[in-house]
């Protein structure tokens, strides 16, 4: 298994009003290609911060982050942006989109902005549409952002994160703002992406979501306090219920 993401002694400190807040403390983490890692933990424990630090959205205070063989702390802003654009995909809890672009235009935005991508606009749009078809939202491509439901929007965000065929997708509570059924749909799409080989790191509060991941990390106050290898999930409802029960028990032990 190839390592795609590795952190060594990652620390992140915010200084607010001269008050030092050590959000992440010495995190050592290794994620292999093809994994679907869930990050769980109480709110304020530093889950999002960890996600941002490893994906280069935020700078680390100390330590190393190696993504796909590159030490990202050493990259300049521009190279980092390029790396994010070409090799990473992002999904957020709030389904952030550009308000004055249509759904389809939002989805293909990263492809349009990518210098690596030299296909025609038409081809890009076609690719965007086929992604939308795959996620079952091909009928809302021309719509405005506020004309589609939350579930559809989040699936559009997944399309956007996929448009540049990233090596890894970072998701911060992708289902946090969705109802149960939308959440299941989104999760199933992520699972199917993962089966196709995309590595996913997903922050979540929802044990049902985490139960579908292949590994669960538990963070408290900026320290990984627990780790559970659950293996890839591709079974039916029964297996899922078993996994959920097992995970819930484990979470209980962690102090969930």
């Amino acid at each position, binding site marked *: 298994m190839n390592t795609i993401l590795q952190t060594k002694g990652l620390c992140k400190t915010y200084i607010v009003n001269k008050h030092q807040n050590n959000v992440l403390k010495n995190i050592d983490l290794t994620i292999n290609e093809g994994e679907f890692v869930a990050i769980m933990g109480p709110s304020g424990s530093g889950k*999002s*911060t960890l996600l*941002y630090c490893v994906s*280069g*959205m*935020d700078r680390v205070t100390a330590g190393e982050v190696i993504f796909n063989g590159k030490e990202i702390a050493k990259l300049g*802003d*521009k190279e980092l*942006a*390029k*790396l*994010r*654009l*070409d090799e*990473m995909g*992002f999904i*957020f*809890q*709030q389904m*952030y*989109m*550009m*308000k004055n672009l249509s759904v389809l235009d939002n989805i293909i*935005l*990263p492809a349009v*902005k*990518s210098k690596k991508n030299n296909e025609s606009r038409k081809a890009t749009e076609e690719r965007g549409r086929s992604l939308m078809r795959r996620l079952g939202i091909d009928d809302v491509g021309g719509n405005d952002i506020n004309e589609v439901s939350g579930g559809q929007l989040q699936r559009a965000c997944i399309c*956007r994160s996929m448009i540049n065929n990233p090596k890894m997708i970072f998701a*911060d509570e992708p289902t946090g703002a969705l109802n149960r059924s939308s959440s299941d749909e989104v999760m199933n799409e992520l699972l199917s992406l993962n089966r196709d080989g995309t590595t996913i790191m997903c922050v979540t509060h929802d044990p049902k979501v985490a139960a579908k991941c292949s590994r669960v990390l538990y963070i408290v106050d900026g320290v990984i306090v627990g780790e559970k290898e659950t293996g890839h999930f591709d079974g039916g409802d029964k297996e899922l219920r078993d996994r959920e029960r097992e995970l819930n028990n484990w979470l209980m032990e962690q102090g969930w």
Partner: protein
Amino acid sequence: MLMMTMMSNFALTLKSEKILWLFGVPSSEAHILDSETLGKLFAEQDAYKELISDTEKLLADNGMPGRCTITIGAYCEAAHNDKTAKIYFEVTKGDTDDTLRMDEGCAPQKNDEIAMTSSALNCLDAQIGDRISAVIDGRECEFIITGRFSSFTSSAAKLYKDFDFGDQSLDASMGVQIHFDGDPDKETINNNIEKIKELIGSDKVYSTSDMIKELTGMSDTLNVIKQMMMIITVIVTALIVILMERSFISKEKSEIALMKAVGVDNGSIILQHSLRFVIVSVIACIVSSAVLMPISDVMMNWVGNMVGDVSGLKCDFDPLEIFVICPAILIGVTVIGSFLTALYTKTIKASDTASIE
């Protein structure tokens, strides 16, 4: 933008040789306004003949042949029906190919024909085709009005070139106009002017634009105003751009953060933000350039009407200045302003995406 280019137009027009005819003199390249030379005109009758031939001889002897004209004028009592008014009668003496520009009707062709400005016509309650009488040199003369013309002198009347003022005492002259033979270029003209200065021992020899500057004194003021307008325009534009861009940035903060998170680099975000302003300012420049000429002409004539009897004045413009330099300055200010402000987007971090709502 519009203001700036309009001022530029005014200044240029008042500086330009295009308005020379409004002073009642034919087109010419050099002007002798030396009071000593001109003093003779008022003292002796027929002095102009001598002056013209002397000057022409002087020019020819010094290798810059040209033709001279002198426009002389006098205020005389004129009457039409029961109306009387003092009118400035002028006549251009000397050899010129120029014909007087008319707004209406035609230039006088005979000694008893005359052209008048609209205010002169108004004073006398006369129209083209009417007969007026005037007392010139003690004689009672009759004229037929053949046309209407524009001049910076209000209540003026133009006589046929052969009309003789006789012993009438003259009130004004615009000096000696020199029209060099063979249309020399600017440099030659300037050299010639320097030579003439030496020859007649006076520095009151002007090129056309200098003379107009001297006479109106307005062009310079306008130039100063223009420069002030430019500075104000630049400052205002910069302020508007900066304030607007700031508000755009704060309004679009989440979108900017999102773009960054997704991996769009700073450069292209800044570019996109500046470009938006540049496009707007380019459009503004095109629009104002398009409406500029008609508006300037209207304004110019309005101003002209206040100063004298002027209509049909076409603004002079420097295409380089109004279509290239002014827009370039404005667009430049916009580019710099929006770019510098857009740099502010750098402070928005990708990780702000999540913390904004």
